């Protein structure tokens, strides 16, 4: 079930090229599913602060796109998400998703405070959609290194989308972000083998023959659920 970075990329390519899926579609389904997983692990009633505030940190690539869709669905599910985008993206889909969040009146942070206490006090939860498995870790610089450092120091729980930002998709990590919740997208990556928090799988759209081709052996989703707990 746990696949490598290369396999994950190959699968996504096939979905887009051979199965006729569009990035917008997949991103929407994944964002919606991630929001669903978050509500299961951090239900509204369980949040300690007066307001159901959530900070959603979105990087410039596909991981960030899923984060933006997730933020919008969290708003629909009655959370109060605030979006933080460390670096503007040149990706058209990212820009559209960002605009949708703005039009839904989601507040945006212009910078991430380095004092972690401010974040801990303001937000019940932080959604980490900064870096995904496609990121070349060696090329990661500012502002991301600063953001990751801040996230590492947080007491507020973190929910990471696909992989915890800064982790290598194929390896376990000892000093990276330690999220309370990991939502793997489509299929868990190898690095998730060493993950010990709550682990959900999102992406209930993988065609059955694609699952067979990559020998995914994914667990069964129940009923009409968009996510399944691993």
């Amino acid at each position: 079930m746990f696949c490598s970075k290369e396999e994950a990329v190959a699968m996504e390519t096939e979905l887009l090229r051979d199965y006729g899926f569009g990035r917008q579609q997949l991103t929407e389904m994944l964002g919606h599913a991630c929001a669903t997983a978050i509500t299961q692990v951090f239900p509204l009633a369980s949040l300690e602060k007066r307001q159901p505030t959530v900070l959603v940190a979105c990087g410039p690539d596909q991981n960030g796109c899923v984060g933006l869709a997730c933020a919008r669905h969290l708003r629909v599910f009655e959370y109060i998400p605030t979006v933080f985008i460390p670096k503007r993206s040149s990706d058209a889909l990212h820009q559209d998703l960002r605009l949708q969040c703005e039009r839904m009146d989601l507040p945006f942070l212009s910078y991430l405070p380095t004092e972690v206490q401010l974040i801990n006090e303001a937000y019940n939860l932080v959604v980490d959609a900064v870096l995904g498995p496609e990121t070349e870790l060696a090329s990661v610089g500012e502002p991301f290194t600063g953001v990751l450092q801040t996230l590492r120091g947080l007491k507020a729980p973190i929910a990471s989308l696909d992989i915890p930002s800064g982790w290598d998709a194929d390896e376990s990590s000892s000093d990276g972000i330690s999220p309370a919740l990991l939502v793997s997208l489509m299929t868990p990556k190898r690095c998730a083998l060493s993950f010990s928090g709550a682990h959900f799988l999102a992406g209930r759209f993988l065609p059955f023959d694609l699952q067979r081709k990559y020998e995914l052996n994914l667990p069964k989703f129940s009923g009409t659920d968009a996510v399944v707990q691993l």
Partner: protein
Amino acid sequence: MLGVRALFGIGLLVTSRGGSVLTHTGACARIASNIYSKDLTHRQACTMADTIKYLGQEEAQHIDEELFDEYSFSVDQLMELAGLSCATAVSKGYPLQSLLKSPPRVLVICGPGNNGGDGLVCARHLKLFGYEPSVLYPKRPSKQLFQNLTTQCEKMDISFLTEMPEVQHKPQRSIPHRSHCRGARFISHTGYICSWDVENGCPDGIQPDMLISLTAPKKAANHFKGRYHFLGGRFVPPALEQKYQLNLPQYPGTDCVHQLN
């Protein structure tokens, strides 16, 4: 998909095997005891149905336009969410274990517009939910969006029929086996069946068992006499809802549908 095009999310479903067809009334009798929704008390249902706004044609069109122009949504996105809502509503109204025939076949009839696109998305999600959908898509637009949706279904091994399956007629019932697309006309044993007007309905038209209103119900839904009326399309921005005073009910939890009756 939305507004005038969203009168029926999927129109109707017919389970068929070897030519025999369940009329919606037949289905009613058999599965009525299994379909009561635990989440919705009768009193809640009445209250919500009273206050929710039923849209006229013009308003529905304006909301459509705003979603795309002001809120920057794309058709792909909203169609995916709409189709998912439809499949979810179907599985709530007609749970797999309640179906009389095995395998759990469903026919999804798709017209040439966005409504048909919703149907294609719905068919795909029904397959993922364990149903066995087949699609009848007599008139396919050339737009890339619809070609992609068709490919997605085909690659999920959803068969596309070339013609309507044979229907066993029962007297004194309008058999729900026709496309929901606007303007389409087919001959049944009782004569022509018109399609519904978005505000006034159509007494001689299709009488579905389930209606899935997308975004918000349309005025024609006042004429709906079936058992299940669901609301779907859980993507309306709060500001848009307020602007048009939609008075949408609260969807339960993270559900993408809400039963109105």
